[in-house]
């Protein structure tokens, strides 16, 4: 998918540069001056025909060789039911609800009348005999195993949202009244630790901005001139811009010249379709596990009859 973006852009650049060279040449060469008149007869240029045919052929190749196979795989070959991990995802203003079937592997029934802030899907949590009793519902926290095909069933309670994991190139509108399945597999290397390591950056303090670094934490202990720790490993720049500016100023004062930072949570599920005034805040943190870790998480969360969050 990224390869097609690269290929298309190289092609666009070639065409644009080709046009551009001819364009600039004409602008310089055929400027109006005394003693020079325009030529009435049109040039017999075959080049333009060749260019157009070439553009047509290239577009056909892009379509047939790149885009359609990718899309067909993306849309038409779901992983077999016995291998995939199924999760229901429900969008609502302004949060993502993730619904796991729990240990029994069966999703419980839902009832709109039972919906509360702590039971956003209206599961029958009071009835221990119901298949929904061991279901797990997390809010804005998406747990998934790496290396195993994920099969998500997306729907919305209110307006249209769009389920998007930019890092994984996953995007699908979430539409009320419809359930749309998507599937993908996170590659084995995509653990949080590995991504955090890859996304670690070092730059000068004076170039740092809180806006840029508000989701980052220090990757190492930052020492001042006198050897004291000014920004400890794991610490951030503070919750607001004012805090951040203060922190950065303090860092510069104590003689820290370089910051080495990494994202606190490297993977996010965001909403890509305007869904209201807090659309921009609608995001879930993505927690990746290996299969054993994921099984343990399911085991742990399935046991209580209540959904997994008590802080509401």
């Amino acid at each position, binding site marked *: 998918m990224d390869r097609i973006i690269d290929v298309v852009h190289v092609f666009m650049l070639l065409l644009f540069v080709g046009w551009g060279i001819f364009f600039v040449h*004409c602008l310089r060469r055929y400027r109006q001056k005394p003693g020079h008149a325009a030529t*009435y007869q*049109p040039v017999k240029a075959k080049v333009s025909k060749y260019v157009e045919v070439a553009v047509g052929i290239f577009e056909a190749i892009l379509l047939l060789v790149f885009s359609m196979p990718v899309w067909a795989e993306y849309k038409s070959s779901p992983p077999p039911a016995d291998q995939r991990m199924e999760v229901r995802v429900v969008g609502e203003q302004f949060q993502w609800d993730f619904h796991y079937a729990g240990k029994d592997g069966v999703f419980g029934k839902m009832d709109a009348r039972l919906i509360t802030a702590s039971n956003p899907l209206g599961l029958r949590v009071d009835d221990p005999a119901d298949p929904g009793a061991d279901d797990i519902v997390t809010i804005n926290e998406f747990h998934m195993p790496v290396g195993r095909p994920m099969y998500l069933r997306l729907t919305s309670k209110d307006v249209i949202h769009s389920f998007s994991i930019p890092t994984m190139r996953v995007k699908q509108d979430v539409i009320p009244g419809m359930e749309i399945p998507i599937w993908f597999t996170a590659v084995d290397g995509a653990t949080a630790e590995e991504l955090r390591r890859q996304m670690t950056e070092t730059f000068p303090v004076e170039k740092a901005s809180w806006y840029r670094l508000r989701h980052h934490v220090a990757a190492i202990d930052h020492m001042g001139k006198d050897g004291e720790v000014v920004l400890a490993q794991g610490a951030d720049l503070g919750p607001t811009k004012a805090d951040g500016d203060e922190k950065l100023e303090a860092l510069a004062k104590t003689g820290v010249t370089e910051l080495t930072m990494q994202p606190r949570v490297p993977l996010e599920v965001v909403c890509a379709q305007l869904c209201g005034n807090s659309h921009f805040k609608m995001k879930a943190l993505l927690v990746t596990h290996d299969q054993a870790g994921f099984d343990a998480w399911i085991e742990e969360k399935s046991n209580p009859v209540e959904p997994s969050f008590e802080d509401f």
Partner: protein
Amino acid sequence: MSEHGHGPQGRHGHDHHGDEPGFWQKYVFSVDHKVIGIQYTITSLLFLFFGFCLMMIMRWQLAYPNSVVPVIGKYLGGAMASGGVLVGDGYNALGAMHGTIMVFLGIVPLGVGGFGNFVLPLQIGAPDMAFPRLNMASYWVYFLGGVVMLGSFFAPGGAAASGWTSYTPLAVTALSGQTWWLFGMVLLITSSLLGSVNFIVTTVQLRARGLSFFRLPFFVWAQFVTAFLLLLAFPPLEAAGVLQLMDRLAGTSFFMPSGLVVSGVPQTQYSGGGSPLLWQHLFWFLAHPEVYVLILPAMGIVAEVIANNTRKPLWGYKSLVYSVVFLGFMSFVVWAHHMFMTGMGTALSTFFQATTMIISVPSVIILTCLIISLYRASIRYTVPMLFALAFLPMFAIGGLTGLPLGLTASDIHLHDTYYVIGHFHYVVAPGTIFGLFAGIYYWFPKVTGRKMSDLLGKIHFWPSFIFINGIFFPMFFSGMAGVLRRQFDQTEQIHGAAAHGLTVMSSWSAWLLAVAQIPFIFNFFWSIWKGRKVTDNPWEATTLEWSAPSPPPHGNFATVPVVYCGPYEYSVPGQKTDFCPQHVALEA
């Protein structure tokens, strides 16, 4: 001979000598296509400026999230801002209104209502539009639509905030600003429909003797195709707008599915069973042809200006005409490429990808023809020519960046990111708006009898060119980095935070672009009264509008023009001048 002198045209002129219209009929409720054209131009330029101002406020929030908006922060009302800091609803309202105003109240009325009205009858040698009263009605319905749109800012909860696309169910459950938006849209579409029939009939019926279809200036062709797009694409959205109004006001459920629960409250007031996707189909069935409604008039202007300033015929005139007609047809079968992310299957997406690739071919032909027209020319670098030349690479960037969006595989990542914003703004801002600027500088002498200042024009052009690229080029990088559009505070997300520097650059470019418009505004008004007086044909052009006096009187032409040749007979070998007007027979 005297018998012939009293033909229909002679009587037409005589009638108007008899009853000189009063002030109101002459300047306000006028039926003269030129006055209506000027009314459209002035009104739409004001709306363009207003829409630009809305965007400048948004750019503050984007560059410096959650800080007090300078200068005007304290005047922003309760639903928009709190303590001078923009709120989410306010930002969304600005976004929705920026889009709506720029498209429906700015560019369409300027390109079609303004330029089309003023120039088209003159270019075809007609005394006026075919239906002058319909023309007046079109302007006043547009004006009313504009007032309703502006009025929506004072609705409880502020103006419409569901994007210019007004996707359901968000738009149906929104506050009352959305109702105002829908009423405004119904009025604006009605206005466009009234205009479009008028343009079609005028072009078909009122061409001067000898002006066959293949002697029409390209501008007329562009307007003609545009009028068909307006006529055929706008009614579905008008119907959809009425359906959404019914959903909001009359309790119907055209776009509302069953079982909605908003903020924990089951929405039992809707009977349900509707489809949110139906709205998207109806909307984009209008909104894709709409793109060509925006760009074609500008393309027409650019073609005129290029032919005039290269002093040679346009290269491949017939290819240009066939391309623009084909473009018009194809624009009706590509709409669902805006909806690849709605869960479209392989068959449907294949069809829409294929049509999308096909529609790029006529655009490439048009661009190639215009560029080859420069070859072996004698280029005059006048101000309109600068804008017209700048249109070419800008439109090329806008068009080319449509390719990765039109292919589903690359669209997955780029959909709803700033890449999209960059793409379509390149088409409509440095593309279309530059074309429209070229038109203003080009036809200003015809409208006023005076020329706009060249020096101020160049001072306007170069900074505008630089800063407008400074706004939109960074957006391609933001988009590829995964920054999503319509985010009140992009730094809330990890991808948005990472690319925040690019956003700051865009914002500063936008504010500087505003500064760069000062020479234009000054030049425009100064030249109306103090500009250098010029002859009827200052650009030594060939098309018919330049054979009329400047400004043209009521009824346009002193004598009815007869056309002898094609529209761009420049530098014809063996002629005394390097231009042969259409109404003058070539010397043998």
